[in-house]
């Protein structure tokens, strides 16, 4: 019970940004408790990923190696992580609040008979009892709760962009290669195929133009796309179209366009909200934008309370006129 263990996730064979953030946050917590920080790399044929993580100042890197761990199969990953946690008994277990973390952490916590707090935005140690104090937004971000749970390991998933990413250091971590005890019977859900789709990565956009419930027809998103194209051309900024949740519910746009608590949390240079009233779930996703422009027919809507610029007007008239002006 004398180590903090964190789950490594990768992108193109290297630790991803959220992992580097976890390493920073985790190392600070471990230092406060006077315990070691270690990381676990799960997969098949992953020595280069483990090597890469080894340059970030952790004490140990556990490499869980097994053919069944190739790709991300939740049943196998949960089984392997349960096996490791039973071997080493970590005091704290951290994962990112990512696609992988959200799926693995609750199941792992249940198997280890401990409690998990998801989507944390702050972590500290209670000096009285050494337990983690977990801060997380609730009610869509309308309130911030500080929680404590008993049980070991102390488990949380951490929202991205909460800690600064760790930089490489001179010392190398000790690599521990392990083959978990897994057999085919643990796979209850079988993957038949992965279908790649063209996905928008809103966090790479300088400008995001989002439509919401106030956009009355699916075809009206063509107007927003035309505005994005015009802005792209006139300013050279990467401009993408996003939306709030009701638009995805109507199946007008795919969920990768969704800005908000359960969509993307973004901070573009300019955010344009068209026909979005400003429910908190949505605001959580875009409030860190540098400049916010709201277009809405309702002068009393919440979006104007958080906007830098507001236009009370029907988007059906305003946007074509704006596109025309930008194209002049």
């Amino acid at each position, binding site marked *: 019970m004398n180590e903090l263990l964190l789950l490594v996730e990768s992108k193109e064979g290297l630790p991803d940004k959220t992992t580097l953030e976890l390493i920073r946050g985790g190392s600070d917590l471990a230092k406060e408790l006077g315990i070691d920080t270690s990381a676990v790399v799960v997969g098949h044929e992953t020595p280069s990923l483990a090597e890469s993580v080894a340059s970030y100042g952790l004490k140990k890197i556990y490499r869980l190696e097994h053919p069944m761990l190739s790709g991300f199969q939740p049943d196998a990953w949960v089984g392997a992580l349960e096996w490791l946690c039973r071997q080493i008994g970590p005091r704290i277990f951290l994962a990112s609040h990512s696609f992988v973390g*959200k799926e693995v952490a*609750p*199941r792992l*916590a249940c*198997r280890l008979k401990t*409690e*998990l*707090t*998801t*989507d944390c935005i702050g972590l500290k140690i209670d000096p009285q009892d050494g337990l983690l104090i977990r801060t997380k*937004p*609730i*009610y869509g971000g*309308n*309130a*911030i*709760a*500080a*929680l*404590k749970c*008993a049980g070991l390991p102390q488990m949380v998933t951490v929202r991205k962009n909460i800690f600064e990413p760790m930089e490489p250091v001179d010392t190398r971590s000790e690599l521990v290669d392990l083959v978990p005890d897994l057999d085919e019977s643990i796979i*209850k*859900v*079988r*993957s*038949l195929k*992965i*279908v*790649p*789709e063209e996905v928008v990565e809103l966090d790479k956009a300088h*400008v995001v133009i989002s439509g919401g419930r106030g956009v009355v027809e699916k075809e009206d998103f063509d107007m927003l796309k035309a505005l994005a194209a015009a*802005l792209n051309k*006139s*300013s050279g900024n990467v401009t993408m179209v996003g939306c709030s*949740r*009701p638009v*995805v*519910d109507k*199946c007008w746009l795919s*969920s990768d366009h969704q800005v908000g608590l*359960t969509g993307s949390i973004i901070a573009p*240079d*300019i955010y344009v909200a068209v026909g979005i009233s400003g429910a*908190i*779930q949505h605001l959580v996703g875009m409030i860190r934008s540098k400049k916010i422009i*709201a277009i809405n027919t309702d*002068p009393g*809507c919440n979006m*104007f*309370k*958080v906007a*830098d*610029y*507001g*236009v009370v*007007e029907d988007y059906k*008239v305003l946007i074509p*006129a704006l596109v025309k*002006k*930008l194209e002049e």
Partner: protein
Amino acid sequence: MKEIRIIVCAKQIPDPEAPFSNVTVNVEKKEVIVDAPDVISPYDENALEAAIRIKEEVGGKITVLSLGRKVSDTVLRKTLAAGADALILIEDPAFERLDSNSVAYVLSRAIQKIGEYDLILTGRQAGDWDSGQVGLILAEMLGIPTISLARSIKVDDGRVLVEKTIPVGYEVVEAGLPALVTVSNEVGELRYVSRTRMMGLLKRPIPIPKWGSKDLVTDLEILKKVQLIELSPPPDMRRECAFIEGASPEDKADKLAAVFKEIG
């Protein structure tokens, strides 16, 4: 194919679409007060819609299971009006402010009491605490396969086929029944329920069983409450909005274009 038995776990919460000005935080009592009507948690509505579509395709029975306090009849009868066949409420003062593990435990006891089932559907997360854990833990407790983030669900020949949203697109996965699937909003919104249909249901006496800790023979000793140390309001998000005025929409468009040039 035999008709399938679906259980949808649905929670009542204050409308998460409420404007933030309608929400206050009572720091002393550690309570969030939302001045908004109660609704079914939005992802749970998606789960119900998915269930109704499965029932339309292969036939079956949908039971909605709701754990909560003072659950509004109007809200939950909406589930019946939309297409659910039965509704069971779980209410007990001992079940208030439970942590996710304990909620999953109580639900697992209720599901064991219901007895036979093929498919359990839950929303991917609730719209109040946004934890996103109960469905996954419930499946672990029941020892059944679990698939998360479904954007479409088909039941065929004793198995469930799911298109699961993944960061690069979607993945087609399958599991044998019984299984639990957590549903995302790409499934689509819950169908419209006419007011007339709702009113008709409200007039008719419908037996809605209410189960408490005695009915579920839950072990109260193992139930844990959320240990809330502190509750605080979020940082102030307000900004000073400069309204762009104009004699015509074209005039406003001109001025807005100038703003884009200035800040872009």
